[in-house]
């Protein structure tokens, strides 16, 4: 049996054998001669790779240095490491109370993400489906929130939290994160639900299915892709944030990783062998997640902006 690729060859009329065959489309990676253009592209690739290396160099340097002994680094900061140690990490681990603070940060980030997605999706449904003027007005009001820096509301928020007895509580911080991230969630969900055809919902309504049930049975399952995009974005923001927990959580037992790192480590006086492991521990959970969900996260981070 002939392979499909050779089939045209066989069916070719015998008389036309001598005519020059059309050249197959150029395959870029065969060993063609080094034309100036290819040379330029090749050089560009080298420059590109060098540029990228330059960007990760500080990162690599941080990892290598954090595994060296202080004396070794002091002798030659950029030299070849002689010995590796994990002592720096165990030291930093206890210095920033890594266990407790990681649990705190996880709790705050997790609860905030749940609240943001639930409230955002619930709000996005009517905003996408109801075309009355007030609905547009509410939507605009939410969009306004995407450009308000936290700094503008931080002082009045502090007074409000004090009056509500929510200072120094997880609930307070979670509510703040929920409120300041809701505009983005509302924007994501509203624009996503608008693209879902209404046929299914109309059929459900005729069958006597209420709005609540329609939402949970028909709309909610369709929201998974936009939710994962939103979650990659906001979980990164909340995990990495310093200001809100710094201002609103004073109890040492409730502090987050970033606050502990900020309060216990002065980068201008400590050795890089103390500084770098702390910095890496703060990033570690995200880095692990990034390695597993790399594809979704890259898509999420760029999709969030193209909208």
């Amino acid at each position, binding site marked *: 049996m002939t392979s499909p690729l050779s089939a045209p060859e066989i069916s070719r009329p015998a008389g036309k054998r001598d005519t020059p065959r059309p050249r197959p489309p150029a395959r870029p990676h065969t060993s063609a001669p080094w034309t100036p253009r290819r040379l330029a592209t090749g050089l*560009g*690739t080298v420059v*590109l*790779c060098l*540029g*990228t290396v330059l*960007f990760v160099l*500080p990162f690599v*340097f*941080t990892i290598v240095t954090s595994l060296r002994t202080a004396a070794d680094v002091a002798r030659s*900061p950029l030299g070849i490491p002689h010995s590796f140690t994990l002592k720096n990490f165990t030291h930093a681990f206890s210095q920033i109370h890594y266990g407790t603070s990681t649990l705190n940060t996880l709790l705050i980030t997790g609860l905030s993400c749940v*609240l943001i997605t639930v*409230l*955002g999706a*619930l*709000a996005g*449904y*009517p905003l996408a489906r*109801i075309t009355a003027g007030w609905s547009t007005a*509410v939507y605009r009001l939410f969009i306004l*929130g995407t*450009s*308000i*820096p*936290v*700094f*503008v*509301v*931080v*002082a*009045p928020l*502090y*007074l*409000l939290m004090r009056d509500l007895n929510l200072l120094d509580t997880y609930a307070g911080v979670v509510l703040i994160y929920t*409120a300041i991230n809701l505009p983005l969630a509302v924007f994501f969900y509203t624009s996503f639900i608008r693209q879902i055809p209404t046929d299914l919902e109309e059929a459900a*309504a005729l069958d006597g299915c*209420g*709005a609540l049930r329609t939402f949970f049975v028909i709309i909610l399952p369709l929201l998974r892709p936009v939710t994962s995009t939103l979650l990659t974005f906001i979980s*990164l923001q909340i*995990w*990495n944030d*310093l200001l809100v927990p710094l201002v609103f959580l004073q109890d040492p037992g409730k502090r987050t990783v*970033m606050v502990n790192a*900020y309060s216990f*480590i002065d*980068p201008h006086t400590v050795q890089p062998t103390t*500084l*770098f492991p*702390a910095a890496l521990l*703060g*990033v570690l959970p*995200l*880095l692990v997640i*990034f390695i597993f969900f*790399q594809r979704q996260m*890259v898509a999420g981070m*760029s*999709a969030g*902006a*193209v909208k």
Partner: protein
Amino acid sequence: MFHRRRATMAAFLLPAIAVYALFVLYPLFRGVYLSLTDSVGGPISHFVGMDEYKAMADDSQVSAALWHTVLYAVVVVVVQNGLGLLFASMLFRRPRVRRALNVVLLTPTLISPLMAAFIWSYLFAPNGGLNALLDGVGLGSLQHVWLGDPSTALYSVATVNIWMFTGYSCAIFLASYMSMPTELLEAAALDGASGWRRFRSVEWPLLAPALTVNVTLSLIGSLKVFEFPLVLTNGGPAGATDTLTLLVYRNIFGGGKFAYGVAIAVLLLVTVVVLSSATNSLLRLRERRV
């Protein structure tokens, strides 16, 4: 029946509106009101009108901080998006390395600003990584007290910002590149247009929406920069890297000048809204033209 559905649907909005109104909108209005009082954060305060704003107009620290904030934003927006575009256009032409390098370039974006500031505070230290590197490659004469010299401190802080987010700009430009109609790009290539010609007359116009998004995002992000100057310089040397956010933080939580800090926060809001809406509408106008 549909009417009742609408009512239930509208009820879905209530929790979101309640949280948003209580913890964002109300503080926003209360902040504007507080900036017109002499409040120190306690229960007693008097309405003093524009006094805080008048004091702000005479305060050279505030005008300097405003200037640093805007200069910082301009440097970051231009360099970060320039580099991001350069990387994206080079990556687009090299499908074999595209994905891997894009992921690598995005890693700094994951780091928290605080951790990035930790890493760079050592790299910029007088006997830190950067100076050691310069010495090592025989450029010892270029060694510098990067964060200690008022003329380089702000740019050094901006470098950290650019380092962190260039990969992000690049990813957005690259996503826009990938959605370009291939027929158009192939037609330009078949017509024998040079690389630069193709970029200038085909790709650049098609990148307009991505440019708008990138400039807007990096502008808003860099105007509210906080962790980098806080950790790297804390506003020093001699106030050369004081930003509006640092002044807000210092006045509200450290200086006892609560209302003054709130007034500076309002100035920050006005700066962000004016600059971002101005550039946004300019860029959108441009999108329609090209």
